[in-house]
């Protein structure tokens, strides 16, 4: 425990001074502020232009425009948070263990009375904590920027941020595990391909399960096997809620509009207990792979 805490503490100090993470954080913070402020300025301009619109054209409802921009903001924010969580996962995963092993720092560390398990636990714990803190701060900033708009989706956004951190954690563990076996750039490329392929597999599996891609038993079987070989992206009900809100916003009273339930069904639904349990299992598997890689490593 003593060794784990020491490794975790000084890994956090080391990570906090790495410029690449600082750059990702600053870009993320500025990006989120820019999305919010930009959309607010855009909405103010659009509303004032709409009110003085050409004669004969019915003026759009300013409340509707504001609500639409609010939804757009949240959609962009979810995307931005996911993107920066991934970048930070790469940034931490590529450096936290790899640099110690490659620079020779591990030679001095492993000659001390610390087990490889304690070292791995400290590194993984510190890397996860660093990611939660960085993405957490970005999420708080997003919530504050959200106050510029009417809001109403803060709760959804908070749960989505947790899901994004959980997904990024898996990616970070994959990068950590791979970077103890191979060059860290190659590890990043392999992890990116695996993660992207995993995303496609899960999306296609969901479409097949919903019957959107025919009824082939072979296809179903293949994708069921593949589905249980890759991490499942966790998601909140945010994507569905956003689609539902957008469809309802533009529904004209008294006229048949698009089918809300059909539109919502095409969007991935919130993760259930099985997904969360699978996520926990995958975390354990990849954390164990990091440990095996560190244990086998000769320095």
């Amino acid at each position: 425990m003593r060794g784990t805490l020491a490794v975790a503490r000084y890994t956090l100090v080391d990570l906090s001074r790495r410029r690449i993470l600082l750059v990702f954080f600053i870009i993320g913070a500025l990006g989120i502020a820019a999305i919010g402020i930009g959309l607010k300025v855009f909405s103010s301009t659009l509303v004032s232009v709409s009110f003085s619109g050409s004669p004969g054209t019915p003026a759009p409802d300013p409340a509707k425009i504001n609500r639409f921009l609010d939804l757009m903001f949240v959609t962009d924010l979810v995307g931005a948070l996911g993107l920066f969580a991934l970048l930070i996962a790469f940034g931490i995963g590529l450096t936290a263990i790899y640099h110690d092993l490659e620079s020779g720092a591990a030679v001095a560390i492993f000659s001390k009375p610390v087990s490889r398990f304690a070292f791995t636990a400290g590194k993984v714990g510190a890397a996860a904590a660093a990611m939660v803190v960085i993405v957490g701060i970005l999420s708080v900033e997003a919530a504050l920027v959200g106050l510029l708009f009417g809001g109403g989706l803060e709760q959804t956004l908070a749960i989505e941020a947790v899901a994004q951190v959980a997904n990024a954690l898996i990616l970070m563990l994959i990068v950590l595990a791979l970077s103890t076996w191979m060059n860290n750039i190659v590890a990043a490329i392999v992890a990116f391909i695996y993660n992207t392929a995993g995303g496609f597999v899960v999306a296609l599996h969901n479409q097949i399960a919903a019957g959107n891609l025919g009824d082939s038993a072979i296809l179903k079987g293949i994708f069921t096997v593949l589905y249980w070989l890759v991490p499942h992206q966790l998601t909140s009900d945010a994507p569905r809620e956003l689609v539902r809100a957008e469809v309802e916003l533009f529904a004209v009273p008294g006229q048949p509009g698009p089918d809300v339930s059909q539109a919502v069904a095409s969007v991935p639904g919130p993760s259930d207990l099985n997904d969360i349990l699978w996520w926990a299992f995958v975390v354990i598997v990849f954390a164990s792979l990091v440990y095996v890689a560190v244990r086998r490593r000769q320095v």
Partner: protein
Amino acid sequence: MAPVVSVEALRKRYRRRDPWAVDGVTFALEPGQAFGLLGPNGSGKTSVVKMIAGLLRPDGGEISLFGAKPGDPAARAQLGFAPEEPDFPKFLRAREVLDYFASLLGLDEDERKRRIPETLAFAGLDQERRQVRQFSKGMKQRLGIAQAILGRPKLLILDEPTADLDPLGRRDVRALIESLKVSGVAVLLNSHLLSEVELVCDTVAILAKGHVLKEGTMAEVVPEGRTLEDVFGELVQASAPPKHDNLPSFITDQENQ
């Protein structure tokens, strides 16, 4: 007296098709003894000490470190290891590196407050505020020795400890080894600097291509009227295939001059 470390028929190779990097090395080291491990580049010296420190897995033979396996944390708590070309987490400062390693060694707060400033002063790094990534090779080497002695080890392994040090630094390391020997600490010294080894070591082993060519006390290895450098040169050359003209022709060619 029980040896602090004993090595029996130690073997190591890095790939199956490679020749043995270490082949049948045997020696033992007792408290208060300074043991010099000598050999040309690639002779297997660093592989031997890394196996003793539990950093490399041997492919054969036995190592006993304080009566335990090298991987045993309790045994490693009594070991100080200053690696060749040491490095540390790049964004930490010297004081933080020592505090990190003191935590790994399980030193309490009072002991850390006492030992860290004194160790930094010994290493000449007490005024240093920069991060390790901005250190010179010599500064890293000083920090490497500092972290090795921080736990007050009973066995100190120094792998080429003075390669990047200035003459004053070398003198400090010699004084350190002498002082540790007197207090009963065993020292295992890997060095190319034969004069240095001759000054501080009681026993030596000369390695080439993973084999021990000669081992014994300094008096046994170096006969009266000879130097360690003479003996080392003869043994190593005898174990290597005869070399002809080592200098490139463009250096020796008269026409180019």
